[in-house]
């Protein structure tokens, strides 16, 4: 009967609405607005920060953009620029790419593919997780003690006293290594077992299975993780300060190999040095450098996210 049907439908509708928790009253709306406000505040801080930085930096860049980007460090604010910071950061990224990424991937492959559940394997695993949580400055102390002091003849003989690009690059690579290991482990873990078993089934050895099946499948995740780690390394300052980046600036022209044992700097440490100076023009320069750094980091992060969305495979 029509009446019963309509009642049944109304009840169904009521039940459906109740099960979604959508009972709206004044306090509910107020509550959700308060929560939304906290989210907006948390997100808006960055926007406010960037706008504030841009307010100073954009006019400066429009006025002397080429000079700012092209000049090196100088004690006169009208001549100073950020080129050495940019170049230094770039060189440090090369270190991360060449040292930390292969070592990190190798370590993750061992932990995920080869290691059996022994005490040693669990110890290494815990160890890696603890290393990921160690503050950056402790890595700076390690770099200072080992690369600057202990390995002084190798990293920076002469007046450099060990505070060279080599020491800085090694320190940053060590810092970023645990992050790369963990993200690569997750990428490898997401490859289903059946893929590996297909390889084993035709008689391949473990390395052959990894090389031909697991790595290509996990490549997008590994790539994303490494790129995100590099973005993190771009912004790090504390460990580089400990290894001498503030007091030294790239003095040598010529490529990265020539500067390995020379003093170095990076964009974040340059920002730190400029911020510490009292003259307001240096503060403006710091703002310009911050804008460049944020754009760089943002582009790298965006690249990683886009790569992940494009190449991600859903098993």
């Amino acid at each position: 009967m029509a009446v019963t049907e309509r009642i049944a439908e109304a009840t169904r509708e009521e039940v459906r609405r109740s099960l979604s928790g959508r009972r709206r009253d004044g306090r509910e709306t107020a509550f959700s607005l308060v929560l939304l406000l906290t989210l907006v505040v948390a997100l808006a801080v960055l926007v406010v920060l960037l706008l504030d930085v841009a307010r100073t930096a954009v006019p400066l860049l429009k006025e002397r953009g080429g000079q700012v980007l092209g000049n090196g460090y100088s004690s006169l604010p009208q001549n100073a620029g950020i080129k050495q910071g940019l170049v230094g950061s770039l060189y440090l990224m090369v270190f991360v790419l060449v040292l930390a990424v292969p070592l990190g991937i190798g370590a993750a492959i061992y932990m995920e593919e080869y290691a059996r559940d022994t005490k040693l394997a669990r110890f290494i695993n815990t160890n890696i997780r603890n290393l990921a949580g160690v503050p950056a400055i402790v890595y700076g102390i390690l770099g200072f003690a080992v690369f600057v002091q202990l390995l002084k003849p190798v990293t920076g003989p002469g007046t450099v006293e060990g505070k060279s690009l080599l020491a800085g690059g090694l320190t940053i690579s060590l810092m970023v290594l645990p992050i790369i290991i963990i993200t690569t482990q997750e990428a490898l873990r997401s490859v289903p077992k059946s893929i590996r078993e297909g390889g084993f089934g035709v008689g391949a050895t473990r390395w052959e299975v990894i090389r031909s099946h697991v790595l290509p499948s996990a490549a997008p995740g590994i790539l994303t993780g490494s790129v995100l780690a590099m973005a993190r390394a771009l912004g790090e300052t504390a460990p580089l300060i400990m290894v001498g980046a503030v007091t030294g600036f790239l003095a040598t022209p010529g490529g990265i190999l020539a500067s390995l044992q020379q003093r170095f700097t990076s964009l974040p440490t340059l920002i730190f040095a400029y911020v510490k100076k009292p003259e307001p023009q240096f503060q403006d320069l710091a703002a310009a450098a911050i804008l460049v750094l944020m754009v760089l980091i943002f582009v790298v992060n965006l690249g990683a996210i886009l790569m992940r969305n494009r190449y991600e495979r859903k098993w």
Partner: protein
Amino acid sequence: MAQAAIDSRITTEVLRGNPARLRRERAMRSLFFSAAFLSVVISAGIVFSLAGGAFDFLRKVNLSTLWSAGWFPRNNLFDVKTILAGTVIVAAIAMVVAAPLVLGAALYLSEYANPRARRFLKPILETLASVPSVVMGFFALAVISPDIVQRFFGSSVPLFNLMAAGLGVGLLVTPLVASVAEDAMHAVPDALREAAFGLGARRRTSSIRVVVPAAVSGITASIILGISRAVGETMIVAIVAGGTGGSLFNLNPLRGGQTMTAAITALATGSDQVRGAGPAYPSLFFVGLLLFGMTLGLNLLSERFVRRVRRQF
């Protein structure tokens, strides 16, 4: 039947496999193992360099100076409670700022935002977590300290104060902690929420009375992670907390102060840079050891909470 031309005898040589392949397999395995073992070497390096320097310091220092008026390395005053107080005050202010923002933002994203908004907002949150601390330090010096702290607390507050550092660290830490807390809340099975709705609960009731208690281990883990990050934060305090040249024991956040992390940077390169045979130089290893111990303890505690979450679901 024609005999098969292939010799079908199975010998032990055949079963043993191609030696070159096996050699390569063993080589790759040891290569990867050494990469993994490198992490242990790094840990050992950290512990040994910190312990060695700290031991050197404790040998050289006059132990009574570890409880004195303030932290003045150049004058041989190494009052540990000064730098500890600085670190604790900054971390406490940071968490007071961060905790409500984190809980609110995470709760909204996990319970109230529709899936499309969440897919859009979550990456933004994760991108925010990658703001470098030196950038936030600049913001703290240029905006937070003059426009917020000095305006709110009066003009007698110096430009370099612990409150501004604490606010900066709190804002820096919020996106990271919110992301982890939101993951914890989102992982609570829908069945629990639907059970609450089925009993007639409103969304806020189910959020506060069901989801948050279910996710409390994950939320606690994220907050402890935030504290650990705040304790280890260096650049913001180095820029805006003051304390260059040393500082007296100070519990007032509206004054300058010194934290453990800023003390280490000052000893290595900044105003307190000393070299030579005295206890001032190795004091940085001593402080580093303290810092390492604190953050290690916090991280292990956080991991214990994460393991509890995994056991529940």
